């Protein structure tokens, strides 16, 4: 029962936050100074054309009635139409969303793998090589511009050593039959080894780029909490009892660190689902980020709005899921909330 009440309350928060989100996207894309209609028709159009387009877009109506209409459209799942692809935005996004999710998922998995393990190891051995390495990697990872890092990796592995494939999207081979939307998994399902290799090869560099960047904060969090945990009373007590260090770390310390680390991981995933824009541009990855950038180049607002909304929504949902998981896993959250 407590769980249900908790989920209901979090869902209510989610709704409130979503209203905020839609209001902001509405403000940003429709209510800024200047007349979008004049932008659409171009500088050569006369006043009557501008007026006609203004009328068609409903821009002459009062603010709240425009917002009301906009919300109505949103609820019926209509994100408008893109001028430059002339598709409904929902169709375009539907085609590109799997590309972003696949990249984001592999990047998160790789980041968790290297950052959490290095974080735990370096926390256990202060003044060691692993600690220095962790310092260097977390400092660099937080500070390096990801688009530049992507370029450097391309320069090294594609330009100089020629061991990476050309950065030309998700695959250079055949596109496997669509099941999950993940080319790598679909290729395996179809049993097409060649398609899998091509898709995986395209994934490596963008995944590594993102994993370095988002791994850095994960590493910091893991190391910080791990150090803190190792100093706590119950770990000291376990040590005093003569429990082997290995089992102290694995059974007593790590479970305590998993909660904050998984929260950070969820935040990073939420960030990735909307934040792979720069890496997508560098590697010509056909995800929603590069879609938004192309739309902006064509002054096409409906897709931008759609992408912004979708990424905010996915962030909120990932975060909510994490919150609920914590509530289930960690009894302490029940008293604190």
């Amino acid at each position, binding site marked *: 029962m407590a769980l249900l009440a908790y989920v209901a309350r979090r869902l209510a928060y989610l709704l409130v936050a*979503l209203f905020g989100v839609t209001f902001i996207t509405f403000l940003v894309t429709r209510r800024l100074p200047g007349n979008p209609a004049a932008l659409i028709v171009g500088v050569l159009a006369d006043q009557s054309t501008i007026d006609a387009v203004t009328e068609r877009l409903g821009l002459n109506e009062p603010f709240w009635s425009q917002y009301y209409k906009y919300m109505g459209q949103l609820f019926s799942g209509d994100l408008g139409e893109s001028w430059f692809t002339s598709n409904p935005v929902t169709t375009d996004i539907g085609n590109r969303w799997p590309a972003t999710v696949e990249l984001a998922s592999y990047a998160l998995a790789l980041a968790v793998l290297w950052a959490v393990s290095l974080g735990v190891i370096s926390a256990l051995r202060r003044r060691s090589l692993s600690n220095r390495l962790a310092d260097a990697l977390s400092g660099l990872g937080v500070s390096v511009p990801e688009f530049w890092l992507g370029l450097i990796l*391309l320069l090294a592995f594609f330009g100089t050593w020629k061991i990476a494939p050309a950065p030309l999207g998700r695959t250079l081979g055949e596109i496997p039959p669509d099941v999950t939307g993940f080319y790598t998994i679909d290729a395996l399902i179809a049993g097409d080894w060649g398609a899998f290799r091509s898709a995986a090869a395209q994934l490596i560099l963008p995944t590594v780029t993102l994993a370095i960047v988002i791994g850095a904060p994960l590493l910091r969090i893991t190391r910080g909490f791990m150090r803190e945990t190792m100093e706590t009373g119950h770990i000291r007590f376990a040590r005093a009892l003569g429990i082997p260090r290995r089992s102290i770390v694995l059974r007593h310390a790590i479970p305590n660190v998993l909660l904050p680390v998984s929260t950070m991981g969820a935040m990073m995933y939420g960030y990735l689902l909307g934040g792979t824009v720069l890496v997508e541009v560098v590697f010509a990855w056909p995800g929603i980020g590069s879609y938004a950038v192309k739309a902006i180049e064509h002054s096409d607002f409906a897709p931008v709005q759609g992408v912004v909304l979708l990424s905010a929504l996915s962030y909120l949902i990932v975060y909510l899921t994490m919150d609920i998981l914590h509530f289930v896993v960690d009894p302490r959250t029940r008293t604190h909330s």
Partner: protein
Amino acid sequence: MSAATLLRVLARAGGSSARLGRRIACAPSFLVLAVIILVALIGPEFVRDPEGLNAGPSLSPPSGDFWFGTDKFGFDIFARVIHAARLDLTVGFSAAAIAVIIGMPLGALAAMRGGKFDSLLLRVSESLQAFPTLLLAMGIVAALDTRVVALGMRIVFLILIIALVNIPVYLRLTRSAVLPIVNSDFVLASRCAGKRDLSILRRRVIPNVLQVVFAQFSVNVAWAIQILAALSFIGLGVPLPTAEWGAMVRDGASYTIYGQWWVAVFPGLAILVTVLTLNLMADRVRYGK
């Protein structure tokens, strides 16, 4: 409480900042930052014109004449990196300053007042933070894009937009730093002694959160520089031929994989060094490392 009063209060909290100041001045990263700022201030006077066409041959590699090589127009990349330092640091510091001036007092007030005011501010900043920062900035800049053409105005708008997307960060940070202090016994004691909110804020609260806020300021300047560079990289920030680090990386991106690496590598390195220095300084202030 007006914004002006709050600012005065902030200014008067200087007593405890002397210790903080010493701590900052002793950090090695501070020295590096000082050099970077100095380069940004006076460096441009000593190098070539960053927009002087055909200063050298097009796309020539680094040499004694052109330390960082030249780009496709024959612009001197070293001169451009130095000039861009001024622009990037100006945008970074101004955007972070605006965000802290608005976000910090709001966060402190939210923590001190509590109640409806607090939860309203918290909800608003939560929804703002649901947006990936870059995407939000992209959306706003894109909507403004065709309307703001003059370079000066563009830069002002970029500063404001980057500040805007960072305000929630400060608000929540200050709020969470102030909250335990407001609920502490020594503040309760001051309350019992009949001190008013403003005096408690000045004498008890602000000196205690200054360190956290300063560290965050340093981080935030770094973020602002990263966001500006990212916006320019996707073609939304500062347009060519103005020298800006991100725009220069964009310009050099297509040459990089064909061997003309210097066009994109040096400006990117400038971003990395500047941002890393600012982050290290924040660590120093925060943990005393």
